[in-house]
């Protein structure tokens, strides 16, 4: 049969004019016929473990679930996914697949011969999402196999993807699992960061129900380090998994950051996505961008701020000191926000926020940049162009320039070794320097992806289970030198 190199099915998006006015999801996913047709494009590589599977941080058995779909067995496909990933409806939506599984699909790139191929990858993300959604809306409740109670108790701190995944796999082993989070909702960044137009909250709600039904206990509104300490938990539990992320907001240290109308991305997104400021005044939490706003940054988070700001009806400027090609967000995402009316300023570096006489933001002073070769052979570096100062007139500014460590849970706990970024050191089994305490997710690598946190959560659950069963812990614990490769 001829290989279908190029006729990839693309998901249907709401048109820009419609989607920019709603916080509803704009990517509608595959129809059933697209799903079946796309599955037909997979050529079932025998060495798929060196290809799509190797590109997937959780190691999903991609052609195996595709095969189940083709045979008319969505439930079977879902069960294949659950072995490696408890939340396919989430990852199917939020993963940067073009860099992961799809980037290693033979149709687009031959990972074995290390050369580009002429085709477009199988739409793995959209297939995965379909499978998760199909089960979610089918009304079928998949019974999770849970082993008999072991009598062991595990405390998981942080209800983001890393913590939830560890909870899922540890509960399946029969342990009593308690998840603590400071915030009143589960999900971590998936709740307060990633906006509902990219990840509908009904998905998170459904996943929460599943986890509760398995008997996982949630304790929301407990700030470890203040409400209770890690020592309290250490006393009462047989093992602890730290999954508190690395999500503290950050600014640049330029003049004017204490003016009114200056937000970190995390504040802005939390107001809108978690506290539902888009429903103000029915929802009591306000957000106030004025008529025009500037979002500073070039990654995931910047895109999300732009999406939300546009949906609030605000004229939105994106300001980034590098080029579109060198930004870390996906190219199509810039296309999407540009179609929605965002004004993109590339090679533009903010140097000062200008305030009016009342201390409110009235503009963002910037300089234009040019990219110059790095003499050491690194990424080309942006350099200011002399005399290019200009002011973008805006009423508010949102800093999406990265996140810092959030060490409240383990600050001052001398048993836990941290690194120079104040994140937690682990060895190759996700063990921290303190016996019985593991760490996963952004907390370990300083910030990566949902799927990476899920991968950590699953592996750590396995190692934690081994520890609970054998009590073994290494005599000479050593920190992994490159935690971002875990």
């Amino acid at each position: 049969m001829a290989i279908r190199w190029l006729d990839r099915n693309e998901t249907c998006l709401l048109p820009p004019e419609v989607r920019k006015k709603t916080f509803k999801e704009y990517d509608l996913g595959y129809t059933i016929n697209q799903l079946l047709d796309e599955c037909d494009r997979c050529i079932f590589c025998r060495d798929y473990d060196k290809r799509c599977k190797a590109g997937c941080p959780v190691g999903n058995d991609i052609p195996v679930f595709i095969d189940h779909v083709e045979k008319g067995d969505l439930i079977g496909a879902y069960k294949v996914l659950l072995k490696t990933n408890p939340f396919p409806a989430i990852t199917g939506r939020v993963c940067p697949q073009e860099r992961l599984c799809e980037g290693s699909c033979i149709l687009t790139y031959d990972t074995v011969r290390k050369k580009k191929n002429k085709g477009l990858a199988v739409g793995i993300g959209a297939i995965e999402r379909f499978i998760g959604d199909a089960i979610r809306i089918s009304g079928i409740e998949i019974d999770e196999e849970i082993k008999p109670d072991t009598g062991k108790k595990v405390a998981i701190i942080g209800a983001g993807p890393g913590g939830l995944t560890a909870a899922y796999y540890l509960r399946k082993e029969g342990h009593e699992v308690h998840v603590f989070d400071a915030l009143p909702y589960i999900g971590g960044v998936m709740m307060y960061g990633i906006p509902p137009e990219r990840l509908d909250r009904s998905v998170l709600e459904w996943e929460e129900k599943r986890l509760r039904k398995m008997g996982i206990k949630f304790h929301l509104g407990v700030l470890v380090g203040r409400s209770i300490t890690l020592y309290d938990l250490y006393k009462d539990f047989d093992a602890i998994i730290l999954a508190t992320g690395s999500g503290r907001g950050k600014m640049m240290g330029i003049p004017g950051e204490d003016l009114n109308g200056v937000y970190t991305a995390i504040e802005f997104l939390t107001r809108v996505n978690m506290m539902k400021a888009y429903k103000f005044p029915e929802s009591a939490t306000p957000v106030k961008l004025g008529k025009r706003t500037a979002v500073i940054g070039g990654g995931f988070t910047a895109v999300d701020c732009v999406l939300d700001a546009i949906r609030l009806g605000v004229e939105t400027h994106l300001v980034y000191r590098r080029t579109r090609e060198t930004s870390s967000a996906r190219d199509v995402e810039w296309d999407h926000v540009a179609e929605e009316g965002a004004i993109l300023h590339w090679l533009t570096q903010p140097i000062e926020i200008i305030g009016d006489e009342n201390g409110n933001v009235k503009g963002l002073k910037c300089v234009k940049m040019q990219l110059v070769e790095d003499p050491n052979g690194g990424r080309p570096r942006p350099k200011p162009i002399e005399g290019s100062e200009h002011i973008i007139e805006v009423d508010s500014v949102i800093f999406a320039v990265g996140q810092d460590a959030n060490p409240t849970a383990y600050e001052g706990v001398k048993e836990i070794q941290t690194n120079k970024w104040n994140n937690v050191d682990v060895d190759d089994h996700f063990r921290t320097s303190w016996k019985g305490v593991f760490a996963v997710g952004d907390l370990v690598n300083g910030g990566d992806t949902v799927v990476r946190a899920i991968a950590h959560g699953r592996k750590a659950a396995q190692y934690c289970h081994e520890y609970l069963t054998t009590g073994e812990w290494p005599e000479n614990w050593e920190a992994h030198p490159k935690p971002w490769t875990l």
Partner: protein
Amino acid sequence: MATEKSVLSLLDKPKVVGKKQVSPRGYFMEIYLPLVANNAKPGQFVTIQATEMSARQPMQIVDTNPEKGTFSILVEAYNRSTVELVELFSEGEELFNVEGPNGKPFPVEKYGTVLLIGHGWGAGANYPIAKALADAGNEVYIAIVGGSRENIYCESEYKQLFGEDKVSVYTEDDEYGKEGGVVQALEDFINEKGQPDLVVFAGGASHGEMLAEATKEKGIKNLSLVPSLMLCTSGLCLTCRVKVGDKMVMNCIEGPYLDGNQVDWKNVTFRTGYYWDLEKESLEYFLNKLLPKLKRKKEKKQNQ
């Protein structure tokens, strides 16, 4: 912060168990949540999100009762969150979420003579600190200040604990007690008893600002509750950032009591005012649209 009881035995759903009105807008509310009742230290607060649609409102813990598993807060109902609390909740009703105890405990040490000045709800905030400082061997004096009589709280509680002569009351409209505000309270104290070793303040930012000018000038140590805006109250969002000297401090995890002489009060006052128009709109929406609807719903439920 460490507790003798097991963590799991302290976790439960937060519930209002008592509500007592003490002035036209002032209410003491008693909330059941054993974790807070057992673990709270003087100076810590809780964050209350009363309903799914409510904002997250920080509230100082005024008192705790570990045996009953309850703690109390002083609610001066002036914005949407506080009005929601007193209008929608009565005995036995569950709150959507309460996070806490939050914030750094107040540094209870032996300072010598301490004057605690509370403006409005701040008198409640200072209450557990006054007790702890007295227990630590300090000479404790209390000034309760309010715009007018209806903003004077905890007068009898303080007097009972410390004696009449240790407690003075001020109103800015001279309706009750002595006339004057927070600075007057400090100056009178100095005239009578000399300079205190420490001033503790809680209340609105503009009063904190005036008081800090006086303590700075006189060289008196000042620990003040900084009523900054807050959102996540867990050290993520930086909404609560306050300039203290040349440092940026996250008030939700490092405060709420900070070095009052170093705090950039102008910026606090100014930034806390950013949403005033929206807050007004939000309160009006609640009173005119939501509250009647919710009341009708409740009545219907009760009739059934």
